[in-house]
């Protein structure tokens, strides 16, 4: 960030939220470890990580329910460390929504406005307006228990959005929904975010939620950010082996570099497979180093050994189909390689005679460019 371009960060902050060097320890446990990031105005930002990685703690610090051990949190360019949670213009959609069961929909949405002393007519107008925007104009007088799961979700968001927050935090709000509704809500959330044009910070352990909705995703592991980037960057250009393994599916081996030659690395896996990689990520990968090797299934082609290959793949293996996992366009085969491991490869299943079947002898081929090595 070039500070020279900003005359007064409070007046024209390019970033709604900025965290610098946040640490949080609970006793000896480091829950959040030196996390820094900036979120541009109006974007959909996800923090993706396995459970226990510290993402909820991070979110609670932004909301003000926890204080960082060190580091600074700025909202619209102003530090909020000394601002209590009820004074921060950061609203939060809780994992189980935390709608107030003793109030009806209208009261739930009006609660925040009442707290800041908005006058009655204004509250009425704003509540009607926000209900209109979430396309539920007629539910104002309903009780919470009369709403469907998806409606509750939208009310929880409306309750926050009516406060016109600088940042909206969402803590895995889709976790409790069934699969079909979750898919629908993913799209809806993205649309709502566009409509309100507010910065959303979305916390999840579900990579598909994060990849589908977000402008930017931060991958978090053991209290640290492994990588921040656009979803496609994270998928195609992971910077660490954790990201490569966590985002998307991969075939994974542990191995060692046996030779380096003109930007290509010869590696041998622990089980003795030999392959060539043209993408080594990380410092000091040289002959003799231990590495992790990742190849995504969609970059591996499987053809019957009897059929004619293109011949231009740097890596090829013989194997036998162990099973076919049919899933429409995302069908896959599991192939047992010569050392007895299973390798996944995407296939097209047409329903014709040339489809692979269990027991077929196959040749697996992939390019060196799609073989990623990470220093261990």
């Amino acid at each position, binding site marked *: 960030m070039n500070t020279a371009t900003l005359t007064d960060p409070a007046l024209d902050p390019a970033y709604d939220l900025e965290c610098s060097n946040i640490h949080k320890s609970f006793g000896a446990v480091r829950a959040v470890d030196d996390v820094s990031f900036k979120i541009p105005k109006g974007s959909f930002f996800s923090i993706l990580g396995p459970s226990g990685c510290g993402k909820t703690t991070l979110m609670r610090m932004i*909301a*003000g*329910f926890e204080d960082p051990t060190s580091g600074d949190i700025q909202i619209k360019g102003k530090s909020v460390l000394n601002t*209590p*949670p*009820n*004074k921060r213009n*950061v*609203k*939060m959609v*809780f*994992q*189980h929504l*935390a709608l*107030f*069961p*003793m*109030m009806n929909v209208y009261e739930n949405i009006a*609660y*925040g406005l009442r*707290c*800041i002393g908005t006058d009655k007519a204004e509250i009425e107008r704003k509540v009607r307006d926000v209900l209109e925007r979430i396309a539920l104009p007629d539910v104002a007088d309903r009780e919470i228990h009369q709403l469907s799961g998806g409606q509750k979700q939208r009310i929880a968001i409306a*309750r*926050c959005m009516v*406060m016109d927050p600088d940042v909206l935090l969402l803590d895995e709000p889709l976790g409790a929904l069934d699969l079909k509704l979750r898919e629908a809500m993913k799209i809806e959330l993205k649309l709502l975010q566009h409509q309100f044009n507010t910065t959303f910070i979305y916390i999840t352990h579900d990579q598909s939620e994060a990849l589908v909705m977000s402008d930017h995703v931060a991958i978090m592991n053991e209290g640290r950010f492994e990588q921040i980037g656009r979803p496609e960057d994270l998928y195609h250009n992971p910077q660490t082996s954790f990201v490569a393994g966590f985002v998307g599916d991969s075939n994974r081996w542990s191995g060692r570099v046996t030779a380096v030659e003109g930007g290509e690395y010869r590696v041998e896996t622990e089980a003795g497979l030999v392959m060539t990689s043209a993408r080594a990520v990380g410092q000091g990968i040289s002959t003799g180093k231990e590495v992790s090797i990742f190849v995504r299934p969609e970059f591996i082609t499987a053809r019957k050994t009897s059929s004619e290959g293109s011949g231009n793949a740097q890596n090829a293996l013989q194997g036998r189909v162990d099973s076919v996992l049919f899933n429409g366009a995302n069908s896959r085969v599991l192939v047992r390689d010569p050392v007895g491991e299973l390798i996944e490869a995407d296939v097209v299943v047409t329903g014709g005679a040339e489809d692979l079947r269990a027991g077929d002898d196959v040749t697996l081929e992939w390019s060196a460019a799609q073989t990623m090595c990470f220093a261990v």
Partner: protein
Amino acid sequence: MQSDIKRLSLILLFAPFALWIALLIILPHMGMVVLSLREKVAPRVYEFGFGNYIDFINEPIYWNTLLRTGSMSILVTFLALLIGFPIAYYIAKIAGKRSRGALFLLCLIPLWVSDLIRAFGWILLLRETGVISSFLTDIGLIKQPIEFLYNDITVIIGLVYTVILFMIVPLVSTLDGMDNAMIEAGYNLGGNGFTVLRRIIVPYAMPGIVSGCIVVFMMTAGSYLTPILLGGKNSSWFTEQIYDQFITRFNWESGAAFGFLLLAFTSVVVWIGLRLTGQTLANTVAKS
């Protein structure tokens, strides 16, 4: 066939409960109703009539005592709620999982001792030559020993102490069922501590509050030992009135009438309380 068996087992399961209600609650009360409607006209001669109830209305001592008992019970209920709520909140929301059980047990301990012993405990502490008075004289804070016993304040303290657990238990169980996120959401949306308490925690805990209040009020209004033992020269309690009617004045008829008046009075107070808080009996009883 199947449904017959089901119905039979339902009846069998329900029978003990129905018998209990009928034999131990409804029947004796019906007997009391009949008794309360008998007027004594001469030795061993009785007539049907409302004389015992009319006596009550015509004698200010009686209804003053009832009103006094009622208002003091309401005060005790209110104090028990005021003191019990923070304790319950601490146990349910702030204390760690492990200390919660221990704290609950601590609250239970006074119940292991009988009413009588507890009242005597208070007497030992509060009497003129008791522990507190002598301690205060010993450290020179007061010159003359003070009598803390035998006044309304002592009665109220003793009653609050006796009943507070019955306030804490339903409160803990309702507050325990409250998602912490609800409280955080209350803050997050801009509420200060007082707003969150008033608009979120208290409304949520209302069923527990109301059921605790009902139990505590009923227990207080119906208590006998504590007000008698700790009470002063002027502190008559309505239950004492009932006891006197039954035992010292051999006037079972008016004692039965008084018993019903107490039942009616407390029921009306509870009904008003439910109306004011917008709760139903079913709701409060089910929740806690």
